């Protein structure tokens, strides 16, 4: 219950986003607290990616307010607290001149001040992030030569290198085989439990994640937030959303 008195990582109120007068998202309000493990699902074109882009300041809302760690988005400066892995992340241009280590090091770039070189701490964080994602043995390999699953772990290691408090992933499994997907969710859950990193991700793999998620946001122009485990089980909007009977199991008692 103590979570209630803490500042949420994201505090979203009455968010609305229109493009040429057309509603893309409307009336979206939610809070995301430290340590949460949240999945976002919804049909294509329903506004999932737009929502994430709004949270990251890549799009400007038509109305409403987004606060990050208690600060208005435009005044928020500590972006290294937020790790973002976009949808196309695992589909890197094969010719881009980058080793695995080059990419993971990018995670430290924004952290260092002007004129500062790579510090000992930077090096340690880069190695640590590669270890956590089990890619240290690939560090000198060219990213273009890796498999989809390996690339995906490189992208997450890059986000982890800045020691974020929250990881935001947009369909992280695009271009990744099923076996790697399972392994990936195990890793994600481990980061959440052991490293206490808040996780917010868009996915289509409802079945795969169902056992684990803390909360589920369904986005289809509007947001439906399933906070209560019992509600997730019978979340009517789920079937409305996809036109199918959806079964989601909720294992974790969520304090909120």
């Amino acid at each position, binding site marked *: 219950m103590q979570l209630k008195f803490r500042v949420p990582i994201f505090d979203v109120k009455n968010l609305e986003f229109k493009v040429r007068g057309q509603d893309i998202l409307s009336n979206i309000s939610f809070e995301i607290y430290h340590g949460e493990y949240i999945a976002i699902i919804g049909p294509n074109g329903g506004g999932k990616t737009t929502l994430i882009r709004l949270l990251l300041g890549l799009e400007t809302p038509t109305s409403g307010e987004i606060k990050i760690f208690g600060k208005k988005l435009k005044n928020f400066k500590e972006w*290294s607290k937020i790790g973002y892995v976009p949808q196309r992340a695992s589909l890197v241009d094969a010719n881009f*001149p980058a080793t695995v280590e080059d990419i993971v090091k990018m995670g430290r770039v924004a952290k260092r001040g002007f004129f500062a070189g790579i510090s000992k701490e930077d090096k340690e964080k880069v190695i640590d992030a590669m270890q956590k994602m089990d890619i240290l043995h690939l560090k000198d390999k060219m990213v273009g030569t890796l498999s989809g699953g390996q690339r995906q772990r490189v992208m997450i290691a890059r986000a982890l290198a800045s020691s974020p408090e929250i990881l935001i992933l947009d369909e992280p499994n695009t271009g990744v085989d099923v076996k790697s997907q399972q392994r990936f969710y195990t890793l994600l859950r481990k980061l959440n439990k052991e490293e206490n990193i808040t996780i917010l991700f868009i996915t289509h793999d409802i079945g795969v994640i169902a056992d684990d998620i803390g909360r589920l946001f369904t986005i289809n122009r509007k947001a439906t937030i399933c906070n209560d485990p019992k509600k997730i089980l019978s979340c009517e909007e789920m079937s409305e959303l996809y036109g199918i009977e959806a079964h989601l199991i909720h294992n974790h008692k969520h304090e909120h």
Partner: protein
Amino acid sequence: MLEMFEYEFMQRAFIAGLFIATLASISGTFVVLRRYSLISETLAHSALVGVAVGLVAGYNPLWVAVVVSLLGAWLIEYLRSAFSLYSDAVLSILLSGSLALAVIIVSLGGAFNNSLFSYLFGSILSVSDEDVRAIIIFGSFSLIFLLLFSKELYFIAYDEEVAQTSGIKVKFLNFLLVSVVAVIIALSIRVVGSLLIGALMVIPTVASLQYRMGFRNTMLLSLFFALLSVVAGMSLSYYFSLPSGATIVLCVIALFVISLMANKK
């Protein structure tokens, strides 16, 4: 072999040439990775407007070229963002527009002569002490910027949005990068010529990309290719009385072809 260095003009040309090779290849790495190669061609033509104004009005064409090339770069960025036009279309419009303007200015001013020709294709004979000074002063600032922000620029080239969400000042650095590229191009036209400088900026990087190495090594190899082409091009140009810019460009293209063959799958 080294008799060419007995001439002061060759010494000047080599200092200017090696400095420009360094600047063009390092800035070129970021330009190529961002798929923005055509900007070098367009800015080279904007610089030509400056040369035309300089020739007609009697100022040092190189200094005016730096100013006009900068204005050109800022105009491109403004048009791209304010009117959401396609980048390549904006570049194409400004390229022909600048060239047309340069030709009109020069012909109205009656300065259509050899000196314009030397700015189009480069001429090592015409590099003056003042040119070398301009290249060293502006070039040093540009080089410091590129080296200081190379990691940020690399991140932006890799993924602009992720860089932005990491807290990197993407817009500001992009603005500085195109400004620096504008300056480098204006400085280069003395040695390589405005019609040929694009090659020195783009081809060394494209050649070094063929070896599929990490960022640092790709950039170093690109620098090596650029320096080698300038040394080889200028030497050949001296001994066989060939035009310097064109010889340098053919040398860098030769290196590109060798790289392509050597890495054929």
